[in-house]
């Protein structure tokens, strides 16, 4: 496939809020599908149970929210409204369950709302440990994973043993490698991998069966190498704060068109949440737990114990030769907005320029943000600082 065809395929998946792919996959395979909210869930277990993991990241800017707004006060972020809208309008009927990872109070409480509003569906709150001692938090998390495995075995009526889990781990390791290659190519040559395209490929990972997604990314990497794309005089930036509610596609384009090459980001972070391969062996549940405990990436919803706050971001800036950081936080997102001053302080100490704005997944006006990031880009180009 050509790049344009791959991107068109991803755009189609992105904009299909009725989840046609999921329905077709279920019909073809006669299996179930399990949804999950951001940031991360161990998709390997769902896959090993013969089910399709489906990432739900709100409804973007294409769905008018009518009923969802009736469940939330004005000062709550947007993603739970659109998720409820998707649920109440039947768009998520093809999901047999939904997982709610422990990332903030809003998503946590949404799990209880889902239990009441969709009582016939499987609902699980994934309680991720904030204790990173393997014999304490690791034990607890392994039990959580074991519980998920048992629930899915009952639902799917299919055994999920060591072999099935290892097979799924291998497939997800391959997917993580393809995504790593994609990110590496973008940071090496951002003009060849526009973030708009990378983002759509990442969003496709929410829907597609893992091996199909891996093939698509590999195909993109191969195709994009054959295209001649002109390098622009853009600055290199990292975008952070976008781990849950997602910016509309137009906003991503606006950032790129304002003179910024995005060389790292934290959207669709669940697909690269563990920064190395999960071990294949006799105890895959334990391997998944260890992966989370020992090798999970730094993000706002994960407690930083010993490490200096902001160290991960500083390291990324250095590794990727980024010239600045853009804090893009969803309005009313406590984890992102409470984290922001600490990260900004770390950047200030190291004289790394940054700029900040807030957005909603349904934001319709990008001009102000484009002017802000454009000015940020110009000032770095001209004076090396913002």
């Amino acid at each position: 496939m050509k790049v344009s065809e791959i991107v068109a395929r991803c755009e189609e998946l992105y904009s299909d809020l009725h989840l046609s792919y999921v329905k077709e996959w279920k019909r073809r395979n006669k299996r179930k599908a399990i949804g999950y909210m951001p940031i991360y869930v161990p998709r390997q277990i769902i896959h090993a149970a013969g089910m399709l993991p489906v990432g739900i990241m709100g409804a973007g800017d294409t769905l008018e929210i009518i009923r969802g707004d009736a469940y939330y006060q004005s000062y709550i972020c947007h993603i739970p409204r659109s998720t409820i809208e998707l649920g109440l309008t039947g768009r998520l009927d093809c999901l047999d369950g939904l997982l709610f990872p422990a990332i903030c109070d809003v998503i946590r409480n949404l799990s209880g709302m889902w239990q009441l509003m969709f009582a016939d569906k499987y609902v699980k709150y994934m309680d991720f440990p904030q204790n990173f001692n393997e014999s304490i938090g690791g034990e607890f998390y392994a039990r959580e994973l074991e519980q998920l495995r048992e629930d899915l075995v009952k639902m799917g009526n299919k055994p999920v043993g060591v072999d099935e889990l290892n097979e799924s781990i291998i497939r997800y390791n391959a997917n993580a490698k393809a995504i790593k290659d994609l990110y590496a190519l973008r940071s090496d040559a951002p003009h060849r991998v526009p973030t708009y395209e990378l983002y759509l490929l990442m969003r496709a990972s929410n829907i597609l069966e893992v091996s199909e997604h891996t093939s698509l990314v590999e195909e993109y990497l191969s195709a994009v190498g054959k295209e001649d794309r002109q390098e622009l005089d853009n600055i290199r930036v990292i975008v952070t704060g976008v781990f849950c509610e997602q910016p509309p596609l137009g906003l991503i384009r606006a950032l790129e068109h304002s003179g910024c090459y995005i060389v790292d980001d934290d959207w669709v972070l669940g697909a690269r949440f563990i920064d190395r391969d999960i071990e294949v062996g006799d105890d895959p549940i334990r391997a998944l737990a260890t992966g989370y405990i020992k090798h999970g990436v730094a993000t706002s919803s994960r407690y930083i114990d010993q490490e200096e706050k902001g160290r991960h971001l500083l390291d990324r800036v250095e590794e990727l030769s980024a010239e600045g950081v853009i804090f893009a936080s969803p309005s009313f997102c406590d984890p992102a907005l409470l984290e922001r001053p600490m990260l900004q302080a770390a950047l200030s100490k190291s004289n790394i320029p940054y700029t900040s704005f807030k957005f909603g997944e349904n934001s319709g006006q990008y001009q102000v943000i484009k002017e802000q990031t454009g000015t940020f880009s110009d000032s770095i180009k001209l004076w090396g600082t913002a």
Partner: protein
Amino acid sequence: MTRDATVQKEQSMVLQKDMIAAHFKRLANAKETGKKVVYTFVPGNLNELIWAFDMLPVHPEINALQSAMRKKSSSYVIEAEKFGHSEDVCTYVKCDIGMLKKGNIGPTGEKLPEPDLLLLSYTGCFTFMKWFELLKQEYDCPVAMLHVPYQADGEKTPEMIEYVSKQLREEVVPLMEKVSGNKLDKGRLRMLMESSARAEENLVAVWESAKNKPSPIDAYFGGVYYIGPIFSAFRGLDVAEEYYRTLREEVDARVEHKLGPITPDGPMKDERYRLVVEGPPNWTSFREFWKMFYDEGAVVVSSSYTKVGGIYDNGFRHDPDRPFQSMAEYCTGCYTNLNLPTRIQYLQQAIDDYHADGFLINSIKSCNSFSAGQLLILRELEKRTGKAGGFIESDLVDPRYFSAANIKNRLESYFQMIDAKRNG
């Protein structure tokens, strides 16, 4: 209603005032006396453990609400916003950060000591974690993280209790031993927990007194004073025991004489509406807010906010025979650590048990832990009980979000709604 020129003070009020003053004095002198200071949170706190090490607890949320009641929170919140904190986030956090940036002068006007330990008992609120990460940037001291799992399926499982107990035994206690320089005195811990259980027994009797008509207490506006000692620095201490014994005697006397609760304008005589309230109060205009209720003869017979530190009316008592498991059960059981279906069940039970005419939600802008999902709570409770539900919005400590006229209008309409339901 009669309106006394001076606020009526009962013995329990005097006791509470004295114990708070003494505690802040101890804190102000902590460095001279060599006492170690622990900053920690209210929900599911580990007060007995802190006192077993003879350390002094400080609760940032209490400082924030005290600052609000003294009209100081506005400047603290604005100060924090100057340092880059968003207008969207929890105002308790911003009030605390702003207070720190302005010299960390506590509610009594004395400077608070810096912490020797940040005890992050992470229960029922995600923001707590970010709050102490922020404080960690300000203070050169260790952090003990106690992660408390959420009751997502409406129960405390043995695995959850074991997880919390293990953190306590293997990480929290050793760190407290290191910071305090003392080994854990298990005998002292036992005595403290025994005392806690006795105080808890009396507090439950006070809550249950509201089943009487008229209710001798207001379980929200008065209730926030009743929970002061047990949820903050005093649970486990003799003074707390004495406070709850005295309070219970006073309440029993009011029941005997069929008296209503004491308000800032004197005893309330005409009980017209019995309400259950969900959500924290507004602290910046606390008296004005309360007055909107007692002027209309509305008394709160049960509230969820007074269970935010821990729930005792389901039978929980600190158990000295199983200290770590008991602390784990306490942490896990506080109100905002319950899932939405359990919260609804709890409120429904309160509406029935306390013969309420209706329920009211005060939705707080700052507090997603309470507020996210409250509109579903409203619908479900209306459906299940057939009682009138009301919904108002305000904030904890940011006065910009307290609109008195708006809230008063809504309350008046709400009381009319109850009347209409009564009249069929």
